[in-house]
Every structure is written in structure tokens, then in C-alpha cells.
């Protein structure tokens, strides 16, 4: 027996078992707390992203634009000026994109696998008003027809019917003067739109539902009937020669198409000078970023876990050392090695259980409080985002994993205890 052993035993003896257990549990609590928090963030964020993806329900749609050099200066030098290329004004100017002509639409339709193509109609309503409660600027989600809205009240839009319908985002409920979300459903609001000559017109629309604002789809969603009506109204007085200038077209393909077939369609469109992206492509970029963040958080959690595992091994080894004589005595009095092993393993598992339950409980308490705080302050704009999401399965998994780690960590000390020779153990001082 060396000096270090004597020292450890002396320290362990001075600490007594209660404090030792508390310290071990605290180490595990910290690990379990970290794990629970990181996993909850992972769950919360991917859950949110999933809800967002749900907002883009259409799986059989490509959004198609003309492929352009962003700066007009590609690898081959400046692009030659083409007087036929019309630059679209209004809200799309910042994209500096080329408008799609009828020929373009025909070319897209000609691509093998494309079932249908339609130019996305651009409408620019100015305001919305309900029952004289005041006018509010109305933002519109142009690609709303492609998405499944994250409804908080009411029903989705009816695109086949003739009634003009609108899905408002939640923040308009109060502003327009509705008592609550339910009160808004079925009411008629007025939408102001300016025609080509600058004259303001009002168009009536029925509120079909209220939707949560999502990061991928912002603004009110309009059904086809309302879009048509607004478009007709804003086109009043438009000269025949003026280009209509849609820059975005949606192309449908067979919903049963395989990934390879979709790739082929995209390649074919690229060959003709179009950029085509599926909804999944667009979301994939966000998903990749989120996956990377979650992976990073998981890495931290694993580090915490490893640290906690070593903590368990260390403290249990200390415990075995401290109780060497007790173990020796029990063996002398006829306790079998298997039972000694089980005794220490069970103790390890129990310590793991205690630590993980306390850690997970603390994480849930702190996380819930943090959620309330975050949702009320700087995440208020992201409706439906619960940063920390605690679910039974992952929390139970963490508890089981920590207990399994505690068991594994306990095997080494337990084996050491079980193998002790009673006489040697009783000689231990």
C-alpha cells in the first residue's frame, strides 16, 4: 500500500459517506442537466424547423427563375446587354431578376416530367381594414398557394371556390380590431389596392383563418379568387404593351417522382437557363445549419457525459477503498463475490439514477422558466418556437443512459471490491 492510497483513504474517511454520495450525485446532476438542456434545445429547434417545413407542404413543386449572373459579371466577363430583357419593377427590383416570358413558360412546360407551369401572380395590396377600425399595411406571402399554413384558428384557404379569402397572421387580429382569433373568422375585411393609374380601390375578402407567422412564410395568404380580383383591379388602365413580368414560376411534377427523376428535371431546366429548386432544396440549407448547431450541442453533451462518467468511476473507487475493511469483513462472514459485485453495481446505478433524475428535473425547471422568458422577450416574433422542448422519450433515454454509464463506471470498482481477499482487506488500514 502506497502513500497515495493511505492519503485517499484518509480523505475519504474524513468525508464520511453522506457527503461523498452528495458530491458524486452533484457531478452527475451537472452532466445530466447539461445533457437534458442540450437535447431539449435540439428537440425544440428541430421541432420548430419541422413545423416550418410543414408550412411548405408542396413536395411536387419546383420554383423556377431565370438563371442570372448576380453581378452581371460572370466567369466569362460581363454579360452582353439584351434589350428584350425586361427588368421588373415594384417589390421584386431588389432581386434584379429577369422576367419570365410566355416562351420561357412554354420552354419549362416542354421539359420532360413537368406536368404544369404557372407564373406567380404579383399583387401589391396597400392596406387592410376591418369595419373602420383603421388601415394597416398588408404584407402578402406570394408563394402562399404552395404552403400548408401553420393555422392557429379557422380553416385553410379554398382555392377552387369563387369567394375571395384571406389568412391573416396573428398580429393583425388585435390591430384590425377583432376581440380574438375566433371572432375574426368569417368576417369580411377591406383590402386597398392601387390600379395602374394610381387610383385606390377596395376589395372585400373573407377571413378564412389565422396563421402563425413562420420564418419561411411571412405575410397574409390569399386564395386564387382574391389574387385574381386584386390582379384585375391593379391592372386597370394598364397599356397593352406593358409586360406583365412575373419573375417566378411554379412548375409541378409528378408527386411520385423519385429523387433521381427530380434531379433530371432540374438538370434539364438548368440546361435551358433556368434555376429550379424544390421546397426541400430551399429548406435543406436551413436544416443543414440547424443540424450543425445540434451536432455541436450534442458534442458538448457528450463531453459532459464523459466527465460525469469519470466522476462516477473516481468516487466509487474511493468508496471501495474507503470500505475495504467492510468488504473484507462481509466476505469473511460468508458474503459471496457475486453479491459484493452486485452491491457496488447497484450503488453505482442508484447514484446514477439519483443524479440523472435530479439533473433532468432541474433542467426541466430551468428550461421551462427560460422558455417563458425567451418567448416573452427577444423571441416574441418567432411564434410557435419553444427553444427548449422537453419530451418524455429523450428525457427517459438520458436517465437510462446516465444509469447505464453509472453501471459501466461502477463495474471497475465493483470488480475490485468483489475480488478482494478477505484477509488482505481486513489487514487494510
Amino acid at each position, binding site marked *: 500500500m502506497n502513500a497515495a492510497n493511505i492519503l485517499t483513504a484518509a480523505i475519504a474517511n474524513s468525508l464520511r459517506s453522506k457527503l461523498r454520495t452528495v458530491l458524486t450525485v452533484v457531478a452527475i446532476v451537472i452532466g445530466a442537466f447539461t445533457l437534458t438542456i442540450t437535447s431539449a434545445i435540439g428537440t425544440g429547434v428541430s421541432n420548430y424547423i419541422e413545423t416550418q417545413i410543414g408550412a411548405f407542404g408542396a413536395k411536387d413543386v419546383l420554383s423556377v427563375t431565370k438563371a442570372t449572373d448576380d453581378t452581371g459579371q460572370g466567369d466569362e466577363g460581363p454579360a452582353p446587354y439584351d434589350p428584350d430583357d425586361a427588368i421588373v419593377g415594384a417589390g421584386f427590383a431588389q432581386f434584379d431578376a429577369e422576367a419570365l416570358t410566355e416562351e420561357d413558360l412554354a420552354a419549362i412546360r416542354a421539359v420532360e416530367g413537368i406536368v404544369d407551369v404557372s407564373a406567380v401572380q404579383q399583387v401589391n395590396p396597400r392596406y387592410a381594414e376591418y369595419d373602420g377600425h383603421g388601415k394597416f399595411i398588408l404584407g402578402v406571402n406570394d408563394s402562399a398557394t404552395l404552403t400548408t399554413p401553420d393555422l392557429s384558428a379557422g380553416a385553410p384557404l379554398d382555392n377552387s371556390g369563387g369567394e375571395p379569402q384571406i389568412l391573416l397572421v396573428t398580429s393583425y387580429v388585435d390591430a384590425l380590431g377583432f376581440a380574438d382569433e375566433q371572432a375574426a373568422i368569417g368576417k369580411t375585411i377591406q383590402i386597398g389596392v392601387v390600379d395602374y393609374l394610381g387610383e385606390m380601390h377596395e376589395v372585400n375578402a373573407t377571413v378564412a383563418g389565422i396563421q402563425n407567422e413562420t420564418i419561411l412564410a411571412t405575410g397574409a395568404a390569399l386564395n386564387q379568387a382574391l389574387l385574381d380580383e386584386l390582379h384585375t383591379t391593379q391592372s386597370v388602365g394598364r397599356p397593352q404593351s406593358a409586360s406583365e413580368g412575373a419573375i417566378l414560376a411554379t412548375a409541378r411534377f409528378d408527386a411520385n417522382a423519385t429523387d433521381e427523376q427530380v434531379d433530371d428535371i432540374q438538370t434539364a431546366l438548368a440546361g435551358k437557363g433556368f434555376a429550379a429548386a424544390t421546397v426541400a432544396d430551399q429548406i435543406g440549407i436551413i436544416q443543414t445549419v440547424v443540424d450543425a448547431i445540434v451536432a455541436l450541442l450534442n458534442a458538448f453533451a457528450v463531453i459532459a457525459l464523459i466527465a460525469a462518467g469519470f466522476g462516477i468511476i473516481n468516487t466509487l473507487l474511493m468508496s471501495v477503498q474507503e470500505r475495504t475493511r467492510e468488504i473484507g*469483513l*462481509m466476505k469473511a462472514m*460468508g458474503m*459471496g463475490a457475486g453479491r459484493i459485485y452486485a452491491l457496488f453495481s447497484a450503488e453505482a446505478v442508484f447514484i446514477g439514477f439519483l443524479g440523472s433524475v435530479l439533473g433532468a428535473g432541474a433542467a426541466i425547471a430551468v428550461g421551462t422558466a427560460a422558455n417563458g422568458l425567451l418567448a416573452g422577450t427577444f423571441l416574441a416574433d418567432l411564434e410557435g418556437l419553444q427553444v427548449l422542448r422537453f419530451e418524455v422519450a429523450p428525457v427517459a433515454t438520458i436517465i437510462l443512459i446516465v444509469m447505464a454509464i453509472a453501471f459501466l463506471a461502477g463495474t471497475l470498482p465493483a470488480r475490485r471490491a468483489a475480488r478482494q*481477499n478477505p484477509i488482505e482487506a481486513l489487514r487494510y488500514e
Partner: protein
Amino acid sequence: MSDGVGEAILEAIDIHRSYGRGSSRFEALKGVSLRIDEGESVAIVGKSGSGKSTLMHLLALLDQPDDGALRIDGVDSSQLSARQLNRMRNQDFGFVFQQFFLTPNATVLDNVVLPLKIAGVSRRERKVRGMAVLTQLEMADKAKSKAVNLSGGQKQRVVIARALVNNPRVIFADEPTGNLDTGTGRLVEDILFSLNKEYGMTLVVVTHDSELAARCDRQLFIRDGRAVPATAISGAPA
């Protein structure tokens, strides 16, 4: 050596035991033979370091001899499985070690009933039997105290209570009265010998105390790892 008191419960035949390896190898027992009959009381006497504890541990099946044989109830100990050895130490043997080996933060009662706990005796019966043996040793009022708070003599009595609680056939006691004042020492001796007389409990006592050794049926003198005749030990009891 058979004197007709009873059957041989323990028999050692030329047992050797050495510690360490190579140059630090030390032979603690250099061939000891002895036979202990059921119901006998035997004192193992000798100077410090002569190998008394080593011999007692071997007889109590806590250790294996390097050479020679041990028989328990006529069965060679090497024939017994680990389970059988454990059962025998748990049910048939009672131990008083040279040190107390009490769990300091556990209560006196919990310390005393440890062999019963290992045997799987129910909590209620453990308590009844534990309290009975504590009463016998005049320690019942300390049953709920933590072992760490006892005096040396009280600890020794707790240790003896622990050795008796399972009603063993053989008691192995290493200096059972070494830490006690004359009065308490007497009490412990009286209990051990009355159990020996009344219930035929076999006693194997390691001691320096010549008076205690004299009360035993027989004395085995050990010097430098060998059994020697009484006359070879200076100052040995007659």
C-alpha cells in the same frame, strides 16, 4: 491427540503459509498440525509475530495454506466450493478479529446483525436476535448508538455480540479480551465459556493472557511458525 471429547471438527495437517515473493518471502507457518474436537476450547498462545493470527485465519477457512491440508468435519477444505465455504463461515463460524472492524457510521445493532443480514434473515428476526445477544453482553441500551461513539471496551463487546449472533458451532477469537478492563474481560470470558459448556460451542482463542489460556481445555504454543511444547515457551502457563 484424540481424547474422546467428541468428533474432530477441525484438523490441520502440516500446514505451511508464507507471505511475499522472492527475497522478501517470509514463511509465517512452517508446518503446523493440530486437531480440534467438537465442543473443545483451545487457546493458541505465542509471542507477537509467531503466526497465531495466520493459523487462526487458515483454520477459519479465510485463507488457503500453501502446503498441507485442512479438514472440516473430516472433509478436505480444497474439496469445498466457494459457495460451501461461504455458507460454512456464515452459519457455522463466529469471528472476533484482532481489530474491531465495526462500520463506524452504522448503529450498534446494525453492526451486530451483519452475519444474519448476509444469511438473508428477515429484518424482524434480525432485530430480535440482535437485541437478545446485546442484552447478554449488557449492551442493549447502546443498540441505537453509532459504533463510532463507543468506548474501546464497548466496541469489543459489540464485536463479540456479532460473533455470537448466528449461534455458531465454532468461535474464532483473536485477542477477545485484549482491549477490555479486568471486569469486562471477565464478563466476556464467562459468556464464551458458558456457551462452550452449555451448548458445546467450540472455542478457538488466540491470546496473550495466560489466565484466559489456562481456562481453555488445551493450549497450543506457537513459536516462529511452529507448534512447540509448553516448556519451550518461557513464562508459559503451567
